[in-house]
């Protein structure tokens, strides 16, 4: 009888832990980016941003509502639960493996994620945009950019206005990057 009780207890605890784990994993569509950390040593330039909800709210406090640019940002981050970015720039090609990209892509194939854009070229690599639908609204965004010399993953958790986010480039006195036109063309 005692054995049965122990078994029941262990089973219930396991079910509970699994459900908590699954909930935490699926919470808000966070993409696990730690698999890319090993690329830091190879990269010539790295951008590593991890901002949780608390930090977003802290940052939002110092954003002025009177400044138009800051007001825009404040509007965008309102409701966001997390912003996670890993960007690696390499001096030469082939510094990251296809498996690195696949580790991210496999997560984005999971339930809830929808790939809305996929542009692939041999010269410029792949650029994929995923959104997590939360009912009728967007509950998360992920951008995966895999150039020959650059790997960038952006993961925004929470409601995202894509148009407002897109319009942010060029704000804060920084011109639009025009990345494509500035890249040297290979012959």
């Amino acid at each position, binding site marked *: 009888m*005692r054995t049965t009780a122990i078994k029941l207890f262990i089973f219930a605890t396991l079910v*509970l832990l699994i459900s908590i784990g699954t909930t*935490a994993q699926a919470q808000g569509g966070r993409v696990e980016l730690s698999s890319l950390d090993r690329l830091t040593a190879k990269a010539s330039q790295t951008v590593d*941003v991890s901002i949780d909800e*608390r930090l977003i709210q802290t940052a939002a406090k110092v954003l002025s509502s009177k400044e138009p640019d800051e007001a825009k940002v404040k509007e965008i981050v309102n409701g966001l639960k997390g912003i996670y970015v890993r960007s690696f720039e390499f001096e030469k090609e082939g510094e990251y493996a296809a498996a690195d990209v696949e580790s991210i892509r496999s997560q984005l194939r999971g339930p809830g994620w929808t790939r809305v*854009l*996929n542009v692939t070229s041999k010269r410029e690599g792949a650029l994929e945009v995923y959104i997590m639908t939360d009912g009728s609204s967007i509950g998360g965004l992920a951008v995966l950019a895999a150039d020959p010399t650059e790997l960038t993953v952006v993961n925004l958790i929470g409601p995202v206005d894509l148009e407002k986010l*897109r319009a942010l480039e060029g704000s804060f006195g920084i011109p639009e990057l025009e990345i494509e036109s500035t890249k040297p063309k290979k012959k």
Partner: protein
Amino acid sequence: MSDNYLWDKSGEPDPLIEELERELSSLRYQPRPLKIPAAHGFGRRRFFAPTLALAATIVIALVAATWTMLKTDKGDTSDNASAHNSSQHTQSTAIPSPHETSQQDSVKEPAPTPKEERPELVYSSAINKRRSVRGRQSDSVLRIRQRREAEIAKDQLMTALRLASTKLNLAQKRAQGTPSVIRNQHKSG
């Protein structure tokens, strides 16, 4: 007369013994099935362990749920708490200083004569003053730290959003420039 009757009832019976036997026969051992009182039945004990396990599971679930909720709302709570604290600090700065308070008190209450002045009150007032100065210093340090943390977070936020915006624009430009390779609205999940 032998004592064999007393030993194994084989000898000649003694009338006195027989009389005694008859008298005590009602108290003789009579074999019958064991009766277990209902209050001490095994049935109840049987259900004790699973109930305990279930209760423990429920307690663990409640603790886990509370922990998860607290973790999720940590940002809100801490920010609200800090905001509340800062408002409290603001209020505390609006509160008259101990020096002023002592002046007000002196107006309200009759001024003690030098003979009535109690040294322990003077001492506690000095301690309170020192505490309030320390409190104000720690508040300002806390505010500076929070401000610095907020500025760092803002910079990170800007970097992240700028990068996200750039990549989205780049995606759109590439999609417009090379329509043949676009695969829109592909459901992967």
